[in-house]
């Protein structure tokens, strides 16, 4: 079973499946650091996927597709910013509502646009990294991907650095742990959180666009399949460390890829069971690690000046 094509397909699939999780997880991490529990991230991914697909379909440019996806995600995020951060409404209720709303909206838009057809995009452009791509197995599996994959991994390092070495990083931490302290230091808590939520929307939207344009090559309603929720789990388990989001995304990407890889290998397991694998893994991971997760003290609490 561990033949070369099997391993390549498995690892390649893991990257493809893992990148949307990575982007969503990093996005969610930014929000959670700032004290906003962003349940609506699933909706942001979905609208990002739709906008990204439409933009890429009509323009033929994948880069434009990703940008449109990010903006689509930000559109949903701006509602979170308005309703939860600015007006202080319940983040869980609004998050669920936005996810359900985005599901309905994208299905409806897709139906108007394409009726019952599911047009495909061309093959996504691939950037093979020189030298690394020539390695056996690892080369074709890890180093011959869409450029966005490398950007996402670079973003992990950048975020890790920015959290520790920029004022933005301090502001996010303070907004999540002790917002009143940030306010007293002369920085707007609401402004900081809105920035964080919009950044989350952009990353989640790009992740959704990658899922549609690169992962599937087409848009299908409800296609995110809980990727946003896995992102929330990753962010919660990563304790504010982007590297752990990367590790978690790799793990879940691998378990998602097993579905395809096992079919390639011709192993006769019912696909329904294989498709349960990532979610069974989530529950297992939560049972084992969840009690170690440390969440910011003010997570989920709206901030109003003068209420301490």
């Amino acid at each position, binding site marked *: 079973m561990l033949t070369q094509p099997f391993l390549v397909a498995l690892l390649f699939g893991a990257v493809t499946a893992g990148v949307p999780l990575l982007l969503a997880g990093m996005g969610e991490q930014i929000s959670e650091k700032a004290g906003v529990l962003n349940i609506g991230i699933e909706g942001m991914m979905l609208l990002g996927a739709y906008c990204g697909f439409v933009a890429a379909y009509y323009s033929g440019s994948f880069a434009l597709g990703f940008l449109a996806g990010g903006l689509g995600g930000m559109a949903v995020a701006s509602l979170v910013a308005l309703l939860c951060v600015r007006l202080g409404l319940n983040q869980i209720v609004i998050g669920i509502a936005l996810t359900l709303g985005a599901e309905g909206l994208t299905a409806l838009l897709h139906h108007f646009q394409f009726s019952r057809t599911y047009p495909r995009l061309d093959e996504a452009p691939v950037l093979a990294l020189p030298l690394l791509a020539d390695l056996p197995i690892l080369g074709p599996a890890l180093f011959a991907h869409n450029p966005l994959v490398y950007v996402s991994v670079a973003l992990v390092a950048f975020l890790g650095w920015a959290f520790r070495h*920029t*004022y*933005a*990083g301090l502001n996010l*931490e303070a907004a999540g742990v002790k917002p009143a302290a940030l306010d*007293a*230091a002369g920085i707007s808590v609401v402004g*900081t959180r809105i920035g964080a939520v919009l950044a989350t929307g952009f990353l989640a939207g790009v992740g959704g666009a990658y899922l549609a344009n690169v992962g599937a090559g087409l848009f299908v309603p409800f296609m995110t399949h809980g990727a946003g929720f896995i992102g929330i789990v990753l962010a919660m388990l990563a304790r504010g460390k982007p590297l752990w989001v990367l590790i978690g995304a790799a793990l879940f990407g691998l378990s998602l890829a097993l579905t395809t890889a096992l079919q390639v290998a011709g192993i006769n397991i019912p696909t329904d069971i294989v498709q349960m694998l990532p979610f069974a893994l989530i529950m297992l991971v939560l049972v084992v690690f969840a009690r170690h997760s440390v969440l910011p003290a003010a997570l989920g609490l709206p901030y109003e*000046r*003068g209420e301490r």
Partner: protein
Amino acid sequence: MGHTDGPPQSVRPAGADSAPVLPSPVLSVRTLTKRFPGVVANDGISLDFHAGETHVLLGENGAGKSTLIGMLAGMLRPDAGEILVQGSPVRILTPRQSLDLGIGTVFQHMLLVPSLSVIENLMLGGPWWQRLARGAAYRRFAELSECLGISLDPDLPVGHLSLGQQQQVEILRALWRDTRVLILDEPTSMLTPQGVRDLSAVLCRLCSQGVAIVLVTHKLAEAYDLGDRVSVLRQGRLVGGIAADEHRGMTEAQMTDQVIAMMFDPAHAPMADERAILLGRGNVHAPSVRRGAAPCLEVRNISTMPRTAAHGLQGVSFDLRPGEVLGIAGVDGNGQKQLAEVIAGQRAPSSGTVLVGGKDVTQGDVAARRNAGIRYVTDDRLGEGTVGSLSVAINLLLKNVGAEPFWHRGIADWARIRQAARDDIQRHDIRTRSEQTLLAKLSGGNIQKVLLARELGKAEGDVKVIVFSKPTHGLDLHNAQLAHRRIRESAAAGRGIVLLSTDLDELLTLSDRIGVLFQGRLVGIVDNGPGAGAAIGRLMTGAVAA
């Protein structure tokens, strides 16, 4: 006094070596007014704050001190009146504007991010798109620390510091920019006596460097020791003050008499012992302890498991005799809550025994302890003491729900419940619209009265021991007086009292003996008397018993 003299080098250029002879004030407020629904929190207040001077704002809880501070710090917006910085009117709408005007504030509740290090907390507030200027921050930290005589490790997470050290960080932060006015809101309320001494040394240095200091307090002794000038607020109004030259020529007693006359309605004038508390010099205790009697409470070698952020108890033992008030001192979080809960039966000790009247009740739950004669007046009045969404009447019976004679086979006898509540409301002077009013609508003082009525009321059975946890925390003076009176009455009636408090003056006024909890250990028990305060202060910082 120009504020454009380059980047922040020191707190203030220390060039002017003599105290200025009343130049124009650095900061003034003119007829400042702030209304909240139903109250005028600040009513036309006009004050001047001068460089190199410590200006004390005195007043009871609710007198409007914190409101005034809030407006200067940009946390609240005034409804009328103006604020002037060096003679020119300014508008302070956000904390940022206040900081930019050179006003630094140390709030009553710590406003630090516990997960960030000292230096990171100080750097908070820079432009978000920039890299942290760590090098410059360390230089500024060293400079300010030296200037103030503070020694702290800048890389330690703030959550690991003591409250006194955290306050030093807050002062550093308030001075971080070119600060001309430093405002401190009740800065000594959480400090040990040693911490208070350190603080006053820092304030002296700042004054000599030309910073204007605004010190908010309700303690007269502090006003006398630290202040150059005193202003007294009552019910949102400025009711009087003592000017700087006047203050210098006064003895403490003279000043005290004058200020007390300003602070209180004649109707609510404090009694001698409350005055002692205000002064922080109190020792007018009349003991009612029955020395020969067998102890009513014996705590033997109690230990508990440590929880996050709180110390577990380690081998705590003491005896309590009928009529005795045993004070338990210590900085918050050193095991007070655990001790109270172990005695009340809300927390199981990992080892040790609790005996009431010679009977072992260690295994008993809350109800069993109550039957054995233990009452517990918690400091968490809204959290575990009462249920805000239930009526006053039910809250008065909260520990007897379902029991005769107010319930018959589980059916409530409302007529009887409400009659009993009306009696209690009258007897304990609880200010509420009716017995049906939801408890959450009551003021803090009245909630405390409900709690006291329930725990100390005519109470079925024989009450032997009462545990009070911070009984006057957050109450105004009148209600604090009432609570103190109830504690003394209970002791005089022959009950043993365990009084846990972080207010040393309160302990010195009420207790016969005072034990000190430090990191979960009872490090010493001191007989109350002259010099007890100093001995307790040493124990509170962890020094070995003298």
